[in-house]
């Protein structure tokens, strides 16, 4: 029995929310304090790698549409690469701030995948609206890791990267398989 798409998206939203809270907390206390306990330092990259495994499982079951299969495979690969690089950074194997370009690239590619695989216009359905909104958001917020690579000491990049995941969670939680775009406030669309 395969769960509905919205159920999988809510689970993804919960993971994004947890990642968002972790990153917001890290932005507040600073990486030195946050990484004082090893398990806490490894938590974010471990969750990202685990998410990529979850996404690969979805790829296996996404046989209903080649576009969705490819998009989920791309997100899974992006999460795997970003998680692996972050693991190496936490472990101390990679030291250059330029490595934050990798999560930035992962966000950019993920955003483009959202935009490319949604073939309907913004107001066609809630799903189409969310695909466009998430896609453009990810493309824009890819600038945060870029800023982190260029100006690693400025907290605004870290905070922006953290808030990205909270926004992503909100958008994913808004997903319904069948609902008007803005609920009872109008803009029908279907399904």
């Amino acid at each position, binding site marked *: 029995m395969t769960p509905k798409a919205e159920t999988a998206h*809510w689970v993804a939203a919960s993971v994004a929310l947890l990642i968002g*809270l972790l990153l917001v907390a890290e932005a507040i*206390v600073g990486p030195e*304090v946050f990484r004082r306990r090893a398990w806490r330092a490894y938590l974010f990259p471990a969750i990202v790698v685990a998410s990529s495994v979850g996404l690969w499982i979805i790829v296996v079951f996404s046989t209903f549409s080649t576009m969705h299969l490819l998009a989920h495979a791309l997100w899974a690969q992006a999460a795997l690469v970003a998680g692996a690089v972050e693991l190496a950074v936490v472990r101390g194997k990679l030291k250059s701030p330029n490595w934050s370009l990798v999560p930035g690239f992962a966000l950019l590619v993920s955003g483009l995948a959202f935009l490319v695989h949604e073939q309907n216009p913004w107001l066609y359905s809630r799903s189409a609206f969310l695909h466009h909104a998430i896609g453009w958001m990810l493309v824009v917020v890819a600038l945060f890791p870029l800023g982190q690579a260029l100006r690693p000491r400025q907290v605004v990049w870290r905070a922006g990267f953290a808030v990205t995941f909270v926004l992503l969670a909100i958008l994913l939680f808004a997903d319904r398989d069948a609902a008007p775009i803005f609920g009872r406030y109008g803009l029908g669309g279907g399904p």
Partner: protein
Amino acid sequence: MNSEYATSIPREEAQEPAVRRSWRTLAIQLLGPLTIVAGIVWAVAQPYRIVLLDRAGQGIYDYLFQAPLLVVLVGIAFTFCIAPGLVEDLEAEELRDPEG
């Protein structure tokens, strides 16, 4: 000297210094509860999102994954698993380096 007028100097009792939490500590402590409140507010605003209140035609996944309850769950996980240790480490850091 008349001892009625010259009384002994009252000994100053050692007082506990007032604990003043930094905004960072407060922010960490508030993150989880605010998330929980957001989930509860969402559940109140959209009760049909809670399957237990509207059981018609629901499957096992609808019972397992109810969006507002997932938000509450994440908030609880952060409040009880992440925040306490983080606050402890932050306060230790602030005691060591009060200027920082």
